[in-house]
């Protein structure tokens, strides 16, 4: 076959130029630089994913990302002042805020008061120093050829490096607050290591102007550790979020993602059950309208026996919005007694909205319980009539029914404070919904 010179889109050219221009100044030399170089080559060879790439079938980045915005500059004092109150969605939990403005870690807006068993540092510093512990782990939590991750690795600027020492139960949740104040692109990479028997709640929120955010988190859940992770995406533009999670033995993790008032969002989770007898639940709610697009894609690998996985994702779709769920469960040979269930439900409030659902099971062990289910439908007219016959007007009746639909998933959040915060954010979205007569 003759060599083909692929045609580069303006965005691909801009990303390549951005890497070219920044490679001398991006943090890290030696091993880090070659990690970047390899990642960039992967991107360079494949380009942005199109719908012909199976994993990105419903989120065509080549059309979604028409222009790549310039890399963000470090925020000035005025920008920092504007970001002071960001992260309000989780404020009621009085978390330890770690704030990023346009992708740069801002220590002044972060709570770095010491706590026993907790260490927090900047990823940029760790890369610059060539911190051996960090570089040894980076990209290893779940290795993937994914292009969004490759771009993140090539261009990663800052992020946090957190270590929760064995047996430590953190007093307050960590809250990674991401604010975009300029229409730029940013690439953040964080590494959180939760050691054996430690316990932590991690929140992450995204807000601000329509920017291009590529953020990745490597989350290592040690043996017998317990991790709750809550993410809220509420900004326009393009959000590419990658979670790479590896769970040890007898660990527990619960993740929840809420997406509302967004542009194009892709939340991809690469999860490995690496040790036996662990439990993991992943849930999410999309509240969409107009032409908003959210893609939640999971790849869950059962590499050890006796683990249980639960996935439940819901979408409320108005206008011409588009919700995508892709969930692939892989059960490796030997991962016997795996118990994995996946459920998605879409509530379509408009004829023009679209919900796509693609479950995949790849099972190479013979003694497992795996299942998936999906539903899509409109509001039940009988329920609506019942509520209205009691005096509740149409808009409020619909709001109550939507609340009930969302509530089924939100109620699964064990922590009351986070449950209320997520529900309140959902109700605030509902309150701004317009009901067509």
């Amino acid at each position, binding site marked *: 076959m003759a060599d083909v010179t692929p045609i580069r889109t303006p965005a691909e050219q801009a990303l390549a130029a951005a890497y070219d221009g920044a490679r001398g100044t991006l943090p890290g030399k030696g091993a880090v630089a070659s990690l970047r170089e390899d990642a960039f080559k992967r991107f360079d060879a494949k380009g942005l994913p199109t719908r012909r790439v199976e994993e990105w079938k419903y989120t065509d980045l080549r059309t979604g990302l028409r222009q790549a915005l310039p890399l963000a500059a470090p925020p000035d004092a005025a920008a920092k002042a504007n970001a002071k109150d960001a992260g309000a969605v989780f404020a009621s939990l009085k978390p330890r805020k770690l704030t990023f403005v346009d992708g740069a870690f801002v220590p002044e807006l972060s709570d770095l008061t010491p706590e026993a068993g907790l260490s927090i540092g900047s990823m940029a510093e760790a890369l610059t120093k060539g911190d051996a512990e960090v570089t040894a782990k980076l990209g290893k939590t779940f290795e993937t050829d994914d292009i969004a991750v490759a771009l993140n690795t090539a261009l990663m600027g800052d992020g946090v490096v957190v270590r929760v020492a064995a047996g430590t139960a953190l007093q307050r949740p960590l809250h990674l607050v991401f604010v975009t104040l300029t229409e730029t692109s940013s690439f953040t990479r964080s590494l959180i290591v939760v050691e054996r028997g430690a316990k932590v709640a991690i929140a992450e929120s995204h807000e601000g102007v329509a920017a291009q955010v590529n953020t990745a988190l490597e989350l290592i859940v040690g043996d017998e550790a317990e991790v709750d992770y809550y993410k809220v995406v509420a900004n326009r533009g393009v959000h590419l979020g990658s979670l790479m999670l590896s769970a040890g033995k007898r660990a527990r993790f619960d993740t929840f993602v809420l997406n509302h008032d967004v542009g194009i969002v892709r939340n991809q989770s690469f999860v490995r059950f690496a040790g036996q007898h662990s439990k993991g639940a992943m849930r999410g709610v999309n509240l969409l309208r107009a032409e908003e697009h959210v893609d939640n894609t999971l790849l869950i690998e059962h590499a050890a026996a006796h683990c249980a996985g639960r996935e439940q994702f819901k979408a409320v779709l108005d206008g011409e919005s588009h919700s995508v769920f892709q969930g692939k469960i892989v059960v490796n040979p030997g991962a016997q007694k795996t118990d994995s269930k996946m459920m998605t439900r879409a509530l379509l409030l408009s004829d023009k909205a679209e919900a796509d659902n693609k479950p995949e099971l790849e099972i190479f062990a013979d003694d497992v319980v795996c299942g998936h289910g999906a539903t899509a439908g409109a509001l039940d007219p*009988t329920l609506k*009539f*019942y509520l*209205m*016959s*009691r005096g509740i007007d149409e808009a409020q009746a619909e709001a109550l029914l939507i*609340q*009930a639909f969302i509530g*089924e998933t939100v109620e699964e959040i064990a922590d009351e404070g986070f449950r209320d915060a997520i529900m309140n954010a959902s109700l605030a979205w509902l309150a701004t919904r317009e009901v067509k007569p």
Partner: protein
Amino acid sequence: MSLLEIKNLHVEIEDEGKKILNGLNLTIEKGQVAAIMGPNGSGKSTLAYVLAGRPGYAVTEGEILLNGESILEMEPNERAAKGVFLAFQYPVEVPGVATMTFLRTALNAQRKLRGENEVSTPEFIKMVRETSDNLGIGQDMLRRGVNVGFSGGEKKRAEILQMAILQPRLAVLDETDSGLDIDALRIVSEGVNRLRSPERSMIVITHYQRLLDYIVPDVVHVMAKGRVVRSGGKELALELEANGYAQYTDEAA
């Protein structure tokens, strides 16, 4: 003026064009308890739904006047605010919406439409507590989603609780006795009887005479083939119990 006047009402099911009510005339006086009896398919439940404004039914002819005002163009919630209440034959489950929240939202929505003030929290809690105690509805049921996990009898009791809180002027009870054992029937009937008042009219729809031993009607109307074919006193119910509906289905044919 009569509380409710239904004149020459013709109703079809919208999508099928199937005619259900066929020139029905019915008048309910203020404070009156009227039983409507009739065989299956005579249009009793359709009448209940059309009064409450359920979508899917087309009124092709006729009029429904509540206190002299036509309600045909009103939304179900507007009718509710005017005092219409339908106790459903099959109350639906609304998961995720707690009964207390639902009741309070409904009551305040009605009051707002009527230009009245919202009810205060202590006042509301007191109202609900008294009534729910009488109906044997526990606090745990009130905290659960509307009707979620309730037995058939509990659902019917919850309907009566809603009626007691919302204080309608016209209550339509659609086959409230269906699916109830004798104890549940007694509790529900007592709940209904407590709500009898010169200010409140009721339409009690039932297939069987049994319910009318507990809720004694002022008048009985017999429906067949989509209209009222006979009206009389409470003794009419006993006659129907003895002779069945055959003569009416033949007469109306």
